[in-house]
């Protein structure tokens, strides 16, 4: 039950003092400057001013903070590195932001089992760097891997471009320690495969911090392929690139990454970071394995596609992908834009890409599109004139594309999550009953607590429409 009026204000006023008693000074940020810095995440829209920002350095401190907030009816907003592009870490006015970025110890690595135990604030890339010498790597590697945290990856069920071959975060999570909204500490899952019973740890993946704060995780690693090769196929159009990509999958070859850039995306990236891409659309493919199987795969791919570049040395590979990896910077230089992350079934990718372009044109907006031909993700960049009206037009176009993808049997979001930004669109993908069920699950876990309120699920009135 929510506390009302004066008693709630009193509870909040006492919170800072209570936290100051429990935490070392470096774990508590109460200055206006610090609070302002945590008002926004990668969406870059200001949320409310938090009551406090706390930076605990161990699970015990997280539990103390959560209990204190629970007792006083103060909402808690879990936060990793704040790279989220949907406002998933945006605090409402008067909440407490719990940042895990000081919890960055790698606790142990089992090089035989291929598992690693880390604190939630460990950066994604740091996991692979730690595992490198033993021959393993951490497969779910979103493009923010240099900064984003494992805790944030679990909250959004992050996946990289290699999702078809290796899966996403949930497929690599052996166990987690989580602080529930009432401050209870639970350890879920185990290093054994498929321990009996329901996989409750998996429920935390993609819950966007509504069910608790993860403080520690045991992750499953993947053998690092001994060699990789990258190929570039020049294509007439994005649709032709999709055909070639599906042809490669039909050969039984499952690449590590396989990305499509349409003509506009190629031009955008070449202008920003020249990589020698030809005019037109391109298909970039990276395969991994032992050298003899890579030779065999390249031969078979060359039988069905006009491969124009084969990069074998790692520097040559990096330079081939440089343009593709610079796409966010390239888009930023061009002007204000909205980046989408919707997805369609792989077999509908050509139609999805064409549909996105038609919708952008019908809104009078430019778009450049990248796609993961391994999982059907469409990263359309919609350029607008900026300002409120530009943003509105861009959002209207983006929403139309997302809804179209959902109607094709896909999803309004395959990578970034829902956060604040896409709540209203949830009704395009889920029925009122489905949303009510998701709400019941969140409520069952939150009890009287209030974790990351106002995220993911649309307001109840909207869902009922």
């Amino acid at each position, binding site marked *: 039950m929510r506390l009302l009026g004066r008693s709630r204000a009193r509870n909040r006023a006492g919170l800072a003092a209570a936290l100051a008693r429990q935490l070392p000074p470096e774990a508590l940020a109460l200055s206006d400057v610090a609070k302002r810095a945590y008002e926004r995440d990668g969406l870059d829209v200001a949320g409310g001013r938090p009551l406090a920002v706390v930076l605990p350095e161990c699970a015990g401190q997280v539990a103390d903070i959560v209990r204190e907030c629970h007792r006083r009816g103060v909402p808690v907003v879990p936060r990793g590195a704040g790279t989220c592009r949907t406002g998933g870490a945006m605090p409402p006015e008067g909440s407490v932001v719990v940042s895990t970025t000081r919890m960055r110890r790698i606790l142990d690595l089992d090089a035989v089992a291929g598992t690693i135990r880390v604190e939630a604030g460990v950066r994604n890339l740091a996991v692979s760097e730690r595992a490198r010498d033993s021959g393993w790597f951490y497969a779910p590697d979103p493009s923010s891997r240099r900064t984003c945290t494992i805790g944030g990856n679990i909250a959004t069920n992050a996946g990289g471009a290699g999702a078809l071959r290796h899966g996403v975060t949930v497929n690599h999570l052996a166990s987690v320690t989580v602080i529930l909204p009432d401050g209870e500490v639970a350890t*879920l899952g185990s290093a054994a*495969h498929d321990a009996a019973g329901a996989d409750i740890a998996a429920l935390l993946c993609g819950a966007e911090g509504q069910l608790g704060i993860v403080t520690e995780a045991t992750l499953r690693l993947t053998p690092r392929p001994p060699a990789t090769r990258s190929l570039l196929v020049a294509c007439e159009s994005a649709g032709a690139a999709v055909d070639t990509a599906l042809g490669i999958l039909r050969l039984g070859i499952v690449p590590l990454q396989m990305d499509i850039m349409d003509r506009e995306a190629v031009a955008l990236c070449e202008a920003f970071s020249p990589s020698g891409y030809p005019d037109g659309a391109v298909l970039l493919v990276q395969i991994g394995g032992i050298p003899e199987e890579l030779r*065999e795969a390249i031969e078979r791919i060359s039988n069905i596609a006009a491969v124009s570049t084969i990069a074998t040395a790692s520097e040559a590979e990096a330079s081939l992908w440089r343009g593709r990896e610079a796409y966010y910077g390239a888009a930023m230089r061009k002007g204000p834009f909205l980046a989408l992350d919707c997805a369609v079934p792989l077999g509908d990718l050509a139609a999805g890409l064409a549909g996105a372009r038609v919708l952008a044109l019908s809104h009078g907006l430019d778009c450049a599109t990248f796609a993961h031909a391994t999982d059907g993700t469409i990263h359309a960049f919609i350029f607008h004139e900026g300002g409120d009206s530009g943003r509105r037009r861009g959002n209207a176009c983006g929403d139309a594309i997302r809804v179209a993808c959902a109607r094709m049997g896909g*999803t309004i979001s395959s990578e970034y999550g829902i956060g604040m930004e896409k709540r209203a669109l949830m009704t395009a993908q889920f029925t009122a009953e*489905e949303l009510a069920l998701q709400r019941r699950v969140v409520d069952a876990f939150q009890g009287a607590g209030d974790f990351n309120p106002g995220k993911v699920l649309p307001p109840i009135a909207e869902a009922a429409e």
Partner: protein
Amino acid sequence: MRLFAPATEAEAAGIVRAHPRIGLAIAGGGTRMVNHRNPALSARSLCGVRRYRPQDMTMTAAAGTPLSAIEEVLASHGQRLGFEPTSAIAGRSTIGAVAAMNLSGPRRPFAGSARDALLGLRMVTGLGERVSTGGRVIKNAAGLDLTRAIAGSFGSLAFITEVTFRTMPVPAAGINVVLPGMRASMLPAVAARLMLKGLPLTGAAHLDGVGLGGVAGAGPVALLRFEGSASAVAAAKRHLDSLDLAVAVHDGGDPWGIVARATVLAPGAGQALWRVTIPETAGGALAEQLAREGADVLTDRRGGLLRLRHGVDFARRLAALVAPMPGASASLEAGPPRAAILPDHNQPGAAMLARLKQALDPNAVFVAANRPGAAAA
């Protein structure tokens, strides 16, 4: 026992709503049904592949579709289920039961579990709601995904009506090899070394004292499988030959069905068969200890799954051995009830499972179905 077998999801929802206070036991094809006092709700009339285009690398099928039918359709397009549900009862198990019981086979540590392959499902909740969760695409970050929590819950949370799962290409080549004389405790490390060389290992088992269809003899023996491109499989064979380990190619049919179903360990009179799930690195050593104590042991999943046959009275000793091992758990797979090992009701997640049950089935319409192994009894 009364059995409902609705032909549509709507009909299933109607049955659930009409029985709010009578526990319903969920059944798939009925291959693992134990005698239950409660009426059963079966998915067997919800049948058929609903959506399959090989280029999507996914398939959506009604829950009651026989696994054999699904495997046949996939094979005709050069695809298969990566998680190898060979422990299912061939021909009769349904895809819904495979999901509900999270049935995976020897390929599990290399290609993921049934749960890993599941992208989404449709279900009837305990309130009679017809809902979907998860999605039909390989990557989906929209909304709370209940798929994996329901998969493996043995029908205690919801009645699954339709599942969508990932498919994988059938590799061009495959080989089974036998390494005689290898100790079980070496299996996890040997398998890890082969994986880290980039060799396409998709099976790593060890047998002690039980033989394998006459091929392996009675001593300890490791059984490995490599599947992949022709060149990768040839490289694996060359690598093993270079190690001078007296490697023999096993070409007497597919031994992995025997491994998955542990048919070589069928208990005789006064005996029982148990299974132990355990972190791989500890599994090999435990297998050796169990063998020393007189058990016939089959180790699979590069040490992560042990099956052992011993006298019925060994139950207490097994429970004592497993209890202090982090992450390990033991259960009875076949044998008399007195050989059962009671599950640990304080297991982590029990309280959270109760919260999930509250959201999905607050009136407790669904009663937990039988656990793995009850079938073989």
